[in-house]
């Protein structure tokens, strides 16, 4: 334990000597992860609001429960098969009552008062229909109307929803791509910080090697440094998104049905994951920064003549 305390002390002392570089690395992680976390949060809001309309669903047909007046026990199954056979239909997905309840729970996960009112029995099963062409929705609506015994209500995606799900799909790709690039940049920046830290302490390192310090004893402070930088940057990112999202939370946008909700469960779950990811990215960066040093681990001189190049 005292040994770990010693290594941690060495780490912090080394970081104090290079405050600017350390701040740079933390900021890099912060910027990349807050963008990624922000994109994730935005995505979550849209996803919850358009839950039923995911994957290009154009029409939702709510169904009467089997056993209700004139609905045969196999009516749902039969209708699903029928609709699948229609020329206008690209794909159909059957969501039973349990699936509907799960969706409802996710949509109102931060509203226990609403969840209390609902239960599985009240929510109807439904067919989620994707059309080969959105212009064909009239004809499909007509055909569904003829199944009035089984079908209780038909809902067609509004233009707004269609646009939003299209935008989220684009945002998903852009967000993932951007986060990936920025994540890599953060790792590289941490690697660079570690390389500079090694350079700043090259005399100490060469003496440590000379007197027989084990390789891990030499490496651990640098790995700790990278980990701390990643951890801090990620924690800052989660905190920043939380602060930015707070005033919006619970509010209702102009579009009446669009509720901006991010539960504390979401922040907790993803926040912890992001902080862990930051730490892992930091450790990865440290190893990258140490890689050249690891190769020449035997000699007691640490690149005295060569200033490490900036990646």
């Amino acid at each position, binding site marked *: 334990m005292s040994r770990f305390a010693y290594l941690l002390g060495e780490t912090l002392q080394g970081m104090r000597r290079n405050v600017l570089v350390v701040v740079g690395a933390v900021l890099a992680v912060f910027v990349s992860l807050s963008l990624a976390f922000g994109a994730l949060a935005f995505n979550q809001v849209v996803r919850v609001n358009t839950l039923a309309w995911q994957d290009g669903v154009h029409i939702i047909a709510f169904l009467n429960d089997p056993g209700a007046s004139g609905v045969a026990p196999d009516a749902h199954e039969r209708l699903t098969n029928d609709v699948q056979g229609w020329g206008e239909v690209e794909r159909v997905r059957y969501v039973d009552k349990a699936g509907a309840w799960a969706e409802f729970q996710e949509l109102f996960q931060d509203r226990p008062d609403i969840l209390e009112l609902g239960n599985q029995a009240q929510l109807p099963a439904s067919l989620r229909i994707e059309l080969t062409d959105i212009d064909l929705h009239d004809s499909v609506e007509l055909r569904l109307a003829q199944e009035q015994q089984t079908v209780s209500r038909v809902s067609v995606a509004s233009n707004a929803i269609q646009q939003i799900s299209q935008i989220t799909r684009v945002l998903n790709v852009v967000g993932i791509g951007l986060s990936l690039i920025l994540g890599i940049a953060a790792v590289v920046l941490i690697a660079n910080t570690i390389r500079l830290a090694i350079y700043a302490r090259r005399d100490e390192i060469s003496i440590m*090697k000379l007197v*027989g310090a084990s390789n891990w004893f030499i490496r651990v402070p640098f790995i700790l440094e990278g980990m701390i930088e990643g951890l801090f940057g990620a924690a800052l990112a989660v905190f920043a998104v939380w602060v930015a999202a707070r005033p919006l939370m619970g509010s209702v946008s102009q579009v009446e049905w669009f509720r901006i909700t991010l539960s504390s469960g979401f922040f907790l779950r993803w926040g912890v994951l992001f902080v862990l990811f930051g730490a892992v990215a930091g450790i990865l960066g440290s190893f990258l920064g140490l890689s050249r040093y690891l190769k020449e681990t035997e000699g007691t001189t640490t690149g005295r003549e060569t200033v490490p190049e900036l990646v």
Partner: protein
Amino acid sequence: MIRLQDVTKVYDGGTVAVRDLSLDIQKGEFVFLVGPSGSGKSTVIRLLLREEPVTRGHIWVAGKDTTTLPSHKVPFLRRSVGTVFQDFKLLPNKTVAENVAFALEVLGRPKSAIGQQVTQVLQLVGLENKGDRYPRQLSGGEQQRVSIARAFVNRPPIMLADEPSGNLDPGTSVGIMRLLDRINRTGTTIVMATHDHAIVNAMRRRVVQLDEGLMLRDEPVGRYETAEVEA
């Protein structure tokens, strides 16, 4: 304690620094490695520390074949070998006592034991009153004493010194040699590379002379012939 068997070292550039060198050094011996600049003295020291791999041959240090030692065990080899260099290699931002303690800290020794060992070794080298000074506040000879203290604080069975008096005036060198002699009398094996004639001739110890990597002579009580031309 140290044994070299047909050791050849060729550097990447093609320079043959050591040629077929065989040498046996017993426990407690004091051996001078002499020869003009570029004759391969420092290379031998580096090979003994496994700072460089041998090209051919075998080297045993403190019972271990260093040429086949896996690299993660190299630190343990170095713990049994204290090293002293011409340029002292002290850390300028640490005090004398901290510089010496550093050698024990990085081996993970408990703090309680370190303080006592540092005091003892500073007494041995005659710097017990200067533990709080920084290296820049010391003379060259005193700085070299600190580096000897650091090399010896862990009580290694072997000490290697590469031109320890190279940066010192003759009077100061005598003091350093007395210190190394004292350490040698505690049973520590010492190998010292030097091209300082006066020192070698005054000490009357075993002399191994190199020239362009070849061993010219190996005498149990040798002198350094004055005919050598230094580069």
